[in-house]
């Protein structure tokens, strides 16, 4: 989230699209009801289904899954055509005026530089024109035909309300109603918040779905504003913490990236991470990258990370591919190229696409280690559960180790929520049986690996042997010790250059803020964005002061929000160029004549003069990007691409299947089905009654939703002869599931380009373990392909067939 859960109460308009907050985030949804009840805010829901969120919405519009970009580009087109643009914001705070160089182009769904054989782009033409000093050229009159604004205008022109209806199946009047309601927030003192979740990320163009909305919010002037922003509703209680700490194959904590194999030394590595300012007088905050990176290396390897060994740069793995994401990992496993797997708090058999492929891949492992508080299906992939999980255990050679762990309520630490808050929690109960904390298990692994390396050597023992491990109990570092390390500490005294008798930083003290981190080895910091969370003043994450003097939901002394306890990102943009609040009643910060002040921490240097430094200091332009130079794999502007399995042809890019820059492994392309055999558009989702594949182990949750079902319209039920409560079989080209039929008015056929598209809704949550009735996993059906940029699987849009069937058969009980 750029803003916070509490801040949603400040909005005028909530747009829930690409998510279902009432269903999947019921506790956070309370802030929507607050905004509605106390501010008279309106709620719009755009979704293929009339959801629980829609049930309390002021307006609901249907949309075919996987067509959000067409809808949103249609809204941008509407704003431009009807002059509903926050002009002062757009001209000053976005790159609308930047001039794009000759050679950049777009036609028939493809940008310049496409190489079909590689399914990738040469992105060199996706760039600005630069002057002699290396600054991007701009035309503030917006007259230059190659300025971003005019390119955008041309790019969105084809997404007319009629085209939106043809692609999305959203009736034109419904689309226009939504566009009109959104357009009202282009007034400087009106805001809209975007609440989205996996309904946008889980597509082969997931990143562009979100980018498209971010562009819309920039044009409306809603970024940095209270009650505005881009608010990603994270799907697990600590999934924000997972990404913050870099638990992705290609990241290190704080969104720093691992080197690739061509970056053999630190200077080469830093060459592409310099983030030079692209406009005069701007602040490009990522220029501090090296300070964060060196401090991270010091936290990892302590005295073994020195200037003379490039701060231990060689200890880091070098990527030979862009990422070892889960799809790639299972592809390799499936090919027999990966033979051991650690599964920590993760149930891939159920939660990854194409279950049959995942199951086959697990069966090729030599060993599988599952660390989990629950009895997961993954640890039992080899068991025979009849139709629910057909297997011949005698033929599976994988050795499975199950290590029971504590769950969140049984240990201490911090969870990072969607609002970027690090909230400390304490153990509520002792762990049962032999369960151990994940930290204890990982420490034992480390100790044993290190001992083996010391005894037997190996290809490269250095990285493990050199690791710093200064904890009171090396068998189990305490959560507090780990938190202090993430915050960072001073490694060596740093005298004040102005007065050498004083110390700028004193050895052994906790770091106060990331601004003080250094690249000379005098500071260590495990995660620069968490710097400030555990200082000499104590554990900031454990603060529980709920006072809110401004009444605007800032709660400055409750827990700690990264970065720097800032509650609203880009909050400098909540004021006009001169520093005056666009809306004084909802102002996080404003220029008081000498500095930025207000209830929130300024997202800019506190004394940075207005009119000079622009608000988006995390971009090297200093402004928000309507056009992304080079950074996105699949285009500087979003384009409507159909899902890889689509019921209709792509009306704006007829020759392109799916996202042309998405990676597809050999064999998976062949497993995509087509609309002749699988005519219906399926999507998967969560239900309020359950949390992923956990809560089915809980008797009370099992009562609330006991059995797997699929949802279909009355029309599709009629077409296929299905009655409410019947057993149905749903097939994709990868397998089938059986489920009960919920026949509902809440799903209606969508008329796309004159033809009806039937939607089949499939909740996840069921498996062959737990307290519910046994059920098939929805991901038997989903396709093995991910987003072009970050490889999040396309769970939200694929093709199926559905027909009545008989109940599933379980394996005979063994005693």
């Amino acid at each position: 989230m750029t803003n916070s859960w509490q801040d949603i109460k400040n909005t005028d308009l909530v747009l829930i699209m690409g998510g279902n907050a009432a269903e999947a985030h019921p506790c956070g949804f309370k802030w929507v009801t607050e905004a509605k009840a106390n501010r008279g805010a309106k709620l719009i829901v755009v979704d293929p289904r009339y959801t629980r969120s829609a049930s309390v919405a002021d307006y609901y519009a249907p949309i075919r899954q996987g067509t959000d970009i067409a809808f949103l580009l249609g809204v941008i087109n509407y704003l431009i055509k009807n002059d509903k643009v926050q002009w002062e914001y757009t001209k000053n705070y976005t790159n609308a005026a930047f001039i794009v160089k000759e050679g950049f182009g777009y036609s028939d769904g493809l940008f310049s530089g496409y190489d079909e054989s590689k399914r990738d782009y040469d992105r060199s033409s996706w760039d600005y024109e630069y002057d002699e000093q290396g600054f991007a050229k701009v035309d503030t009159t917006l007259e230059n035909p190659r300025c971003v604004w005019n390119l955008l205008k041309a790019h969105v022109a084809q997404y007319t309300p009629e085209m939106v209806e043809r692609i999305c199946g959203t009736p034109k009047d419904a689309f226009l109603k939504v566009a009109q309601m959104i357009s009202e927030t282009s007034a400087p003192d009106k805001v809209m918040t975007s609440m989205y979740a996996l309904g946008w990320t889980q597509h082969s163009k997931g990143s562009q779905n979100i980018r498209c909305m971010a562009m819309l919010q920039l044009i409306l002037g809603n970024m940095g504003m209270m009650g505005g922003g881009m608010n990603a509703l994270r799907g697990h209680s600590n999934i924000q913490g997972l990404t913050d700490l870099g638990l992705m194959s290609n990241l290190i904590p704080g969104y720093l990236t691992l080197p690739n194999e061509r970056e053999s030394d630190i200077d080469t590595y830093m060459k592409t991470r310099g983030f030079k300012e692209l406009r005069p007088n701007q602040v490009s905050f990522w220029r501090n990258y090296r300070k964060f990176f060196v401090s991270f290396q010091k936290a990892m390897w302590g005295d073994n990370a020195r200037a003379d060994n490039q701060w231990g740069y060689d200890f880091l793995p070098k990527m030979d591919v862009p990422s070892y994401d889960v799809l790639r990992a299972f592809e390799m496993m499936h090919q027999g190229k990966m033979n051991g797997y650690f599964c920590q708090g993760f149930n891939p058999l159920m939660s990854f696409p194409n279950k049959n492929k995942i199951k086959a891949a697990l069966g090729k492992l030599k060993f599988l280690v599952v660390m989990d508080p629950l009895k997961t299906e993954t640890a039992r992939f080899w068991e025979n559960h009849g139709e629910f999980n057909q297997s011949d255990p005698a033929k599976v050679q994988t050795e499975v180790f199950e290590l029971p762990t504590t769950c969140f309520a049984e240990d201490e630490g911090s969870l990072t929520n969607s609002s970027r808050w690090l909230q400390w929690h304490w153990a509520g109960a002792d762990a049962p049986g032999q369960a151990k904390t994940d930290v204890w298990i990982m420490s034992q692994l480390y100790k044993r690996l290190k001992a083996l390396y010391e005894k037997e050597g190996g290809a490269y023992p250095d990285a493990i042997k050199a690791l710093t491990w200064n904890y009171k109990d090396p068998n189990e570092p305490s959560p507090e010790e780990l938190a202090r390390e993430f915050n960072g500490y001073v490694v060596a005294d740093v005298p004040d250059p102005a007065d050498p008798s004083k110390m700028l930083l004193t050895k052994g003290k906790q770091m106060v803020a990331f601004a003080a981190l250094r690249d000379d080895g005098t500071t260590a910091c495990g995660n620069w964005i968490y710097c400030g969370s555990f200082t000499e003043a104590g554990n900031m994450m454990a603060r529980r002061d709920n006072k809110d003097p401004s009444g605007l939901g800032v709660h400055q002394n409750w827990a700690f929000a990264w970065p720097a306890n800032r509650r609203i990102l880009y909050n400098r943009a909540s004021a006009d160029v001169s520093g005056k609040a666009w809306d004084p009643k909802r102002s996080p910060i404003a220029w008081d004549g000498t500095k930025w002040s207000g209830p929130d921490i300024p997202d800019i240097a506190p004394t940075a003069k207005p009119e000079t430094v622009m608000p988006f200091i995390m971009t090297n332009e200093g402004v928000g990007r309507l056009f992304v130079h080079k950074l996105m794999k699949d285009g500087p502007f979003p384009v409507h691409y159909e899902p890889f399995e689509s019921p209709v042809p792509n009306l704006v890019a007829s020759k392109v299947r799916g996202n042309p820059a998405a990676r597809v492994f050999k064999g998976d392309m062949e497993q995509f089905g087509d609309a002749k055999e699988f005519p219906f558009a399926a999507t998967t989702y969560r239900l309020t009654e359950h949390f992923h594949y956990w809560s089915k182990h809980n008797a009370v949750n099992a009562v609330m939703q006991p059995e797997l079902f699929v949802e279909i319209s009355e029309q599709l039920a009629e077409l296929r002869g299905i009655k409410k409560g019947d057993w149905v079989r749903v097939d994709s080209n990868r397998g089938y599931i059986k489920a009960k039929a919920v026949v509902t008015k809440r799903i209606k056929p969508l008329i796309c380009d004159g033809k009806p598209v039937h939607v089949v809704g499939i909740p996840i949550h069921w498996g062959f373990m737990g307290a519910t009735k046994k059920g098939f996993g929805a991901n038997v059906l989903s396709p093995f392909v991910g987003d072009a940029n970050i490889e999040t699987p396309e769970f939200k849009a694929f093709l199926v067939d559905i027909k009545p069937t008989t109940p599933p058969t379980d394996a005979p009980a063994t005693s």
Partner: protein
Amino acid sequence: MATLEIARQSATRGGITGALPLKDTFEVAKLIDVSKCIGCKACQTACLEWNDLRETVGVNVGVYDNPHDLTENSWTLMRYTEWDNPETGRLEWLIRKDGCMHCADPGCLKACPSPGAIVQYTNGIVDFQKDACIGCGYCVKGCPFNIPRISKATEKAYKCTLCVDRVSVGQGPACAKACPTQAISFGTKAQMKDLAQKRIKDLTSRGYKNAGLYDPPGVGGTHVMYVLHHADKPQVYASLPGNDVKISPVVELWKGVTKYAGMGLIAFAAVAGAVHHLIVGANRVTEHDEQEGKKTLDGKIKESA
């Protein structure tokens, strides 16, 4: 609860401490704002957890309602209705939390023949006392909202207590506490009526011209009230009885005129018996009676041998 005063109890004239009226200043109410409810079932879950109830894991029969009806273990239930609003032509998903309404004039209490099995406290809460319950099921017949359920295992009646154990120590009901959107509020009845008016104003401004409070006068008003977007049509909310809901006339008759007529009959029988005794005297067993009786007994012994 010992700390609460009883206003009325079943099959008893007056309460234990005499016939106390419901105390205006003290009457509590739960307000369920259907327009704020997202149907998450947190209330159902909280009810099971707080009351330590364990419902059986059922099956899906093609709807979201689970379990499919109130049971002796499920004292509250979300009922989902997909309703095409004929006036707007738009679909509405109406989600109503069903459970005991805690009527000011409770049909269950009126119908109950077992003294003290159903009580009403002065704060308006209607509560079943299982020690005195005889499992006859009259309360089910007496309830105009079809709420109480009889357990086959214990042969007792069960329903929502309005968390009387929590309320008596100054806390709100578990369902209200668990509700994430504050669709369930709890306070004095006067406060809840005020809150309802605020909500109705908001709903009216959003085009729900018939938004209103459900507090049916036919049962003397209720201590669980609803804010409805379509208060003129309570029936669309999973067959919520109309605003004119009343206790069944059979119960009124049974406990009203019939009760006194019945008591009159019993009294008449007693009086008639006494008069008969005085005039005719006690029955005497004759020698003939003894002989006949002996024959019958002998025959039975032979048969069984």
